[in-house]
């Protein structure tokens, strides 16, 4: 099998240019999908028979929660690729993922709290999903903290990559244990999104939003990746040629 396409990803100029070309292909569909889904979710979808208009926060909450977990998987995969094939660009991808993932985790926590106040009567309950999400935030913070504390870039890359891989092995165990911990302390909270019987005009904007958020993440990742490559390669000659 011809592996040149894969080896090309090891070259920062190639990835830099590719990321620049691809960004609009992610950004525009993301913008259209998110705007359409906002209209569908906030205007077209009927109010929930129990939660009224309060349920509409799900259109921001669920996609953020999904991305928070998915970005960790992307980050760990990139870190693993960087560790195994010693690919600097993969480490740059992992480094660019962390900040976005942490913010999506914060967004999902905050929107969950805003939803919890009218629905549960309190901003915070020790619901297993909320708790697992909070722990995920600490995993992101640990990853970024470790990177920030190591001066040498190559060592920071590899040390944080090992941490990301350890985290990805541990994440399912944490999720499972937290679920188990809570199920014995309090009755599981009824969450709307568990219901498979969501009507289509509520569900369609949600799916569009999921896709839109994922594409948005792709666009932001590409932009951050370009910035990260510029930062890392600031002394390389190809950058001077590229920017003049």
């Amino acid at each position, binding site marked *: 099998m011809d592996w040149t396409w894969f080896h090309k990803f090891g070259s920062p100029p190639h990835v830099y240019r590719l990321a620049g070309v691809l960004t609009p292909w992610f950004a525009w569909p993301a913008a259209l999908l998110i705007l359409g889904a906002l209209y569908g979710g906030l205007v077209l979808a009927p109010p929930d028979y129990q939660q009224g208009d309060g349920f509409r926060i799900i259109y921001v909450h669920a996609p953020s929660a999904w991305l928070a977990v998915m970005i960790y998987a992307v980050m760990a995969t990139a870190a693993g690729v960087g*560790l195994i094939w010693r690919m600097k660009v993969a480490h740059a991808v992992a480094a660019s993922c962390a900040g976005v993932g942490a913010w999506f985790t914060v967004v999902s926590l905050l929107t969950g709290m805003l939803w919890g106040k009218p629905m549960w009567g309190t901003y915070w309950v020790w619901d297993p999903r909320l708790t697992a999400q909070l*722990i995920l935030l*600490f*995993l992101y*913070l*640990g990853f970024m*903290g*470790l990177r920030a*504390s*190591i*001066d*040498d870039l190559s*060592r*920071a890359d*590899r*040390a944080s990559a*090992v*941490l990301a*891989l*350890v*985290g990805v*092995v*541990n994440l399912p*165990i*944490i999720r*499972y*244990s*937290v679920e*188990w*911990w809570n199920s*014995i302390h309090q009755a599981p909270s009824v969450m709307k999104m568990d219901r498979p019987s969501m009507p289509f005009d509520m569900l369609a904007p949600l799916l569009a939003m999921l896709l839109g958020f994922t594409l948005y993440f792709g666009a932001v990742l590409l932009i951050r990746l370009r910035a990260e490559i510029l930062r890392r390669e600031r002394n390389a000659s190809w950058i001077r040629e590229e920017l003049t």
Partner: protein
Amino acid sequence: MSAPGMVRAAAWVVQRDLRLATRRPAQVLQPLAFFAVVTLLFPLGYTPELAKLRAIAPGVLWVAALLASMLALESLFREDAEDGTLEQFVVSGQPLTILLLAKTATHWLLTGLPLTLMAPLVGGALGVPFAALGGILSALVLGTISLSLIGAVGAGLTLASRRGGVLLSLLTLPLAVPVLIFGARATELAIAGDSLTGPLYLLGAVAVLGITLAPLAAAAAVRIGLE
């Protein structure tokens, strides 16, 4: 790189660390004193009533054990990295995973095991009934093994950073959440007089997974930290 040589090298590592610990007993005793002091704070800060203390005893015991073992982690690799011992491990031709597993096992003998043995004393002070101690001890044995292993990964990762300390806790504590949950649950069941085989199996599973994977991650981390 024959197998007997590997076993002998691991035995030497254990022997050396145990001897070092007898030369500097303060390093072993301080986490234990910390464990006792932290648990003492709860009757003072919350209530001296044994019935109420018993209700929070599982959480207090496990959080204190977690923090005490965290405190002891600082010394796991740092001194050996500074005086070159770990570099000798790397160039010795023996598998670094096994040597680090030996080091972690010794670390457990010097912190996890004494913490477990202290638990009856501390638990008694929190109103834990005598009959529950057997279950709590077995949970703590399994749980502290996992804590030492997770901690070894964290200690290896922070070798490359300028200072460990708070960062080490930030890295390790979220990873230790399952141990805390299963351990506290086992303790709770033991105090209530119920069967605690479920959480004990889970603690055992986490420990086995840790013994299998953590030395690999720790070895990778130490290699990066030593460059």
